[in-house]
């Protein structure tokens, strides 16, 4: 342990020594789970990075590493960024949580921001977007667009963030269509176009004519396009190249304002470890254009729902809501607490199948 501390100490000294050359320049690092050209999740984070570069010009330098596996390799990639002189590092996938915490412990002078996780430290902040707000809109449209009454859902990993999305979409699809059913396929990946396409094809073969995805690539969109009469929604990014059909709308993550604000905080020396969870009202989540493939009255009611969420008048998880096992979750008019949502590990009533345990 002593030796380790010594090494870490030399590391900091070296990092500081090299940092001294570029004192006026702040270096911001980004660790991505997929390639920057995935057209979805990583693509949007990289747009955020580019926005940081554009906003600060020569005052800030950004570095990134793409397609970093969510295992032991992540820790090395993050450390390597610190050694390169990064002052602020965004690790943009859930699986980087322990790696981020470990590296942060060794380099207390560097700031870290971990997306979608739950572990914080003095120099580790967390941030996430309320994707479930967008899912409510998707469910609302999907429930009315489906003719087979079967909606396919490509889940990535059965973690609370993804389960929130399934529940939110299902609640709002059922609200407008009592006969609708959801089929969930777990892909166990964030980005794997082949697996994602396969999952979409399986769902379509089971009769699904609407596909929702919580994975990062555009492969499910392409599979739906090939099938012809299947509706999809862009995920994490607009995916407008598949509009107006099959992609009829989308959830867009907009990280740019957050990344710019946090970089500014580091420059100003006001950075603090925070826990950010923003949604449609703050602009971190926005809904892509609802195309003409959606009937006008459906589009109008969807837009009304967006407006209500933006104004803070409507919460997608408002009681009465019952769990799948029949127990009461939220009483009439009660709104889900953030704590409940962050640890969500159950389906709501009406969803079939089990969450893999």
């Amino acid at each position, binding site marked *: 342990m002593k030796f380790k501390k010594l090494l870490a100490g030399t590391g900091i000294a070296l990092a500081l020594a090299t940092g001294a050359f570029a004192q006026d320049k702040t270096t911001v690092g980004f660790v991505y789970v997929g390639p920057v050209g995935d057209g979805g999740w990583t693509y949007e984070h990289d747009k955020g990075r580019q926005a940081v570069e554009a906003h600060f010009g020569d005052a800030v330098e950004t570095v990134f590493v793409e397609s970093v596996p969510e295992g032991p390799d992540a820790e090395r990639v993050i450390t390597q960024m610190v050694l390169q002189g990064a002052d602020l590092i965004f690790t943009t996938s859930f699986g980087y949580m322990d790696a981020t915490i470990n590296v942060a412990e060794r380099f207390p002078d560097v700031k870290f921001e971990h997306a979608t996780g739950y572990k914080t430290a003095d120099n580790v902040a967390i941030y996430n977007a309320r994707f479930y707000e967008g899912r409510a809109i998707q469910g609302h449209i999907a429930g009315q667009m489906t003719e087979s009454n079967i909606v396919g859902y490509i889940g990535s990993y059965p973690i609370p963030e993804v389960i929130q999305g399934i529940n939110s979409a299902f609640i709002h699809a059922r609200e407008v269509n009592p006969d609708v059913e959801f089929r969930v396929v777990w892909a166990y990946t964030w980005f794997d176009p082949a697996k994602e396409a396969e999952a979409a094809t399986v769902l379509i073969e089971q009769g699904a004519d609407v596909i929702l995805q919580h994975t990062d690539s555009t492969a499910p969109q392409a599979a739906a396009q090939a099938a012809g009469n299947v509706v999809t929604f862009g995920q994490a990014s607009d995916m407008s190249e598949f509009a107006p059909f099959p992609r009829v709308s989308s959830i867009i993550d907009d990280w740019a304002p957050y990344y710019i604000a946090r970089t500014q905080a580091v420059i100003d020396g006001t950075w603090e470890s925070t826990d950010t969870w923003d949604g449609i009202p703050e602009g971190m989540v926005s809904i892509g254009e609802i195309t003409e493939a959606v009937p006008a009255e459906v589009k109008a009611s969807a837009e009304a729902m967006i407006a209500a969420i933006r104004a803070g008048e409507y919460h997608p998880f408002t009681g009465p809501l019952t769990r799948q096992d029949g127990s009461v979750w939220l009483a009439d008019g009660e709104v889900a607490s953030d704590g409940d949502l962050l640890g969500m*590990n159950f389906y709501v009533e009406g969803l079939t199948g089990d969450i893999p345990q």
Partner: protein
Amino acid sequence: MIRLEKRTAPSRFWTYAAPLLAVVLTMVCGALVFAALGNDPFVTIRTIFWDPLFSEFSWYYRPQLLIKAAPLVLIAIGLSFGFRAGVWNIGAEGQYILGAICGAAVGLAFYPTESPFIFPLMVMAGALGGWAWAMIPGVLRVRFGTNEILVSLMLVYVAQNLLASMALGALRNPDASGFPGSRNLARYPSATSWINEGAGLHWGVVFALIAVIFAYITLSRHIFGFHVRLSGQSPRAARFAGVNPGLLVLICMGISGTLAGLAGLFEVAGPSGLISIDFNAGYGFTAIIVAFLGRLHPVGILLAAGLMALTYIGGEIAQSNLRLPAAAIQVLQGMLLFFLLAVDVLTHYRIRLTARGVA
């Protein structure tokens, strides 16, 4: 015209020169690819092959090379026995996963008791897990004549699903409020495989070196090594020499499974720390390249694993320093195997220039 003529015996010179030539060709073609991508080819090659060893931050990268190379050496040494004997275990990745699951399960069962006996028990469980998983294709081949390539490969997918279910269910950290993944074994003093984290030293590194020595002695000095080599070269002659082919298959599968299982256990109790859905990072498949690049020779494997580790670590440096796309590194690693197989022709064939038009 260029003609290939089969050599009566493989060339001794090219047996050793082929891997080196393959590395040089990979560097040259890699440099061309990097240049085409708009990077300075010399700087890129230096970043990948030189910087991890000798740059200003090599104090951090050298230990990382050990961490990355150790599982590759362990698995590749195990595979080399089978590959020499014509037993094709392609599923080391699955055996690696099972070793990690079994070893971690034993460790987690004792949490939070502290005792010096926990880690040795985990090692045994890890070895046993990998061994048992390898025995499935082994026994199926011996008893029913199934193809061990297919069965062992398919079992990788079974193992991955088992891993996911463990991370989500039985081994899930009860304090993680619904999030998948086990407790962090690296933070559990009695269960961690770290000897010195800063120096990159964990028990897997020690075992990898022991495995190299053990394999070297067995293959060159022991009758079992002779039987293994004989079975690969001439199964018929091996039978006359008194080799029981079924038993040999089981022993070879057993050795590779055990070592892969050990590699998994050391990884999960150290560098990885926890059983998660994406715990496996492809070491079991990369080790196949390492085994062949190292000429199935223990010392060769040691060097080849070091080289592979270098391309991984250097590749990451090139990615963040030079903005080289991740795919370019994968192309480089793929080229290595491609050129090795291509250059291997020289080991077995002689190139003859002959007059044109002779029919």
